[in-house]
């Protein structure tokens, strides 16, 4: 089962996305801010990260940057979800290594499709999921 780490400071959004992804059959981990995110990024195993941009302690771009600079986490796909939709931020997120970008308000269906696409791309490029199948 694919494990997804959701990093989001808005409690409502965090719970909502967690519920949607759990219902869709994913294993979900959550972090409420940059600090908790870095902690979970170090100590947990996950395949995809969905991160907000503006959070306390560290922003989403820092999360992307840290993940991409860690050679052991190169396989992790990253989706940035944010209400900040200006071109500079989107370009910066992609430059740092994000795989996808969704602007809030999001469509649940679109998020699931994009996740599925990312997982498919991973399997076609022969990358193995880190989390063990249950």
């Amino acid at each position, binding site marked *: 089962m694919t494990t997804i780490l959701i990093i989001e400071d808005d409690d*409502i959004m965090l719970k*909502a996305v967690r519920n949607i992804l759990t219902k869709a059959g994913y294993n979900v981990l959550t972090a409420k801010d940059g600090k908790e995110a870095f902690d979970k990024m170090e100590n947990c195993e996950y395949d995809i990260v969905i991160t907000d941009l503006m959070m306390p302690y560290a922003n989403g771009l820092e999360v992307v940057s840290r993940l991409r600079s860690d050679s052991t986490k190169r396989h992790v796909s990253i989706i940035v979800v944010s209400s900040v939709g200006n071109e500079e931020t989107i370009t910066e997120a992609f430059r740092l290594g994000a795989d996808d970008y969704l602007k809030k308000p*999001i469509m649940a269906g679109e998020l699931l499709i994009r996740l599925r696409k990312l997982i498919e791309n991973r399997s076609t490029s022969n990358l193995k999921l880190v989390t063990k199948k249950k």
Partner: protein
Amino acid sequence: MWSDLTNLLYQAYEQYSFLPLFIEIALFFIFIAIFATIFAYGVILFRRWKGYVHDKRMKFIRPKVEEMITEQVLINENLEQIPVEEIEFDQAAINDKIFKKPWVRQVVIDILIQYRKNFRGEVGELLRKLYIDMNLTKDSFEKMKSLKWERKIKAVVELTQMDVQISDVTILPLTNSTNPSLRAAARNAYIQLSKNEPFKFFDVATEPILPWDQLELFRIITTTKDIAIPNFSRWVSYSTNKSVVSFCLKLIAHYDQQTAIPAVMDLLNNKDHYFRANAINCLGKLGAEAAEDRLTKIYATQPIHCQLEILKALGRIASGNNLEFLKNEFLFSSNFDVRMAAARSIIKHNTPASRAMVEDLRATTYEENKLIISHCLNPLIKH
């Protein structure tokens, strides 16, 4: 006991009148300070108690509301299986006794709005359906009747977020309220909710659209989907509200409404020089070549900020017909800002003729003007 206390107070009062004046004044202020302190502590305690009760209630009710919304909307089995309007909610769950209490219904509305800010598409539509099916529209419309403007604003925001139509009879008077916050909220709502004539309130606006409100309105107008954009020249020609005209000029420039040029040019005769400056600015942004002659003709009779706008406009239009005019202003004006604006406008033309003119000026003019040209040519300095 009460009679003893009354006697004591009576005696104190009798003695008070025999005390020296400064003692009387001191006692008076001591009493005031004691009462004020007791009152302040009372208010603080009351507010803390209210906050405590509110937190306790929220801790109890929020998980229940979130659970209900999650079950009915987010993980609804029918979502994406059948059209949203055909999805039926679990009536037992949404009609639970707990959701009948007014304060709980308000919590439901607040949480629904938070969800709506994060989700669009089918989830967003289903959240709206839940709001309507729980008859929460009634609560919002009740708030619209309140005498308190804060409650009215809350209602307007709720109905706008939930995309629920508000009749013109209700909302139009609010767009002209004397309360600036209510007025701004109602205008924002009107633009977002009115599908046919989102700018109808311009017709009745007698209260000003404040600069900050203009920014917010501009954001809403430019980001709301499927908004019917009218020709704003009709308000430029006929509105008596200065701020409406000024705002419409900005919108005309933003939407590049070339057909509005004659109406904007009519404003050049206006007695108010701020109007004229705004109109000149708008003509420049529209690249109105037809206005160039008029602008150069009126130039000499204008106040300085209108002159600067004319020079900027000539640079934006950049037809090349007025390069000599700009050169003369650059060389012979005694005002530094005018010379600066003229230099920028010449450079902005960016044609072989203008580039040759700049080179010629750099070679022949005196030191300060050379510095102005170098400054204006520096691509790192944004104008």
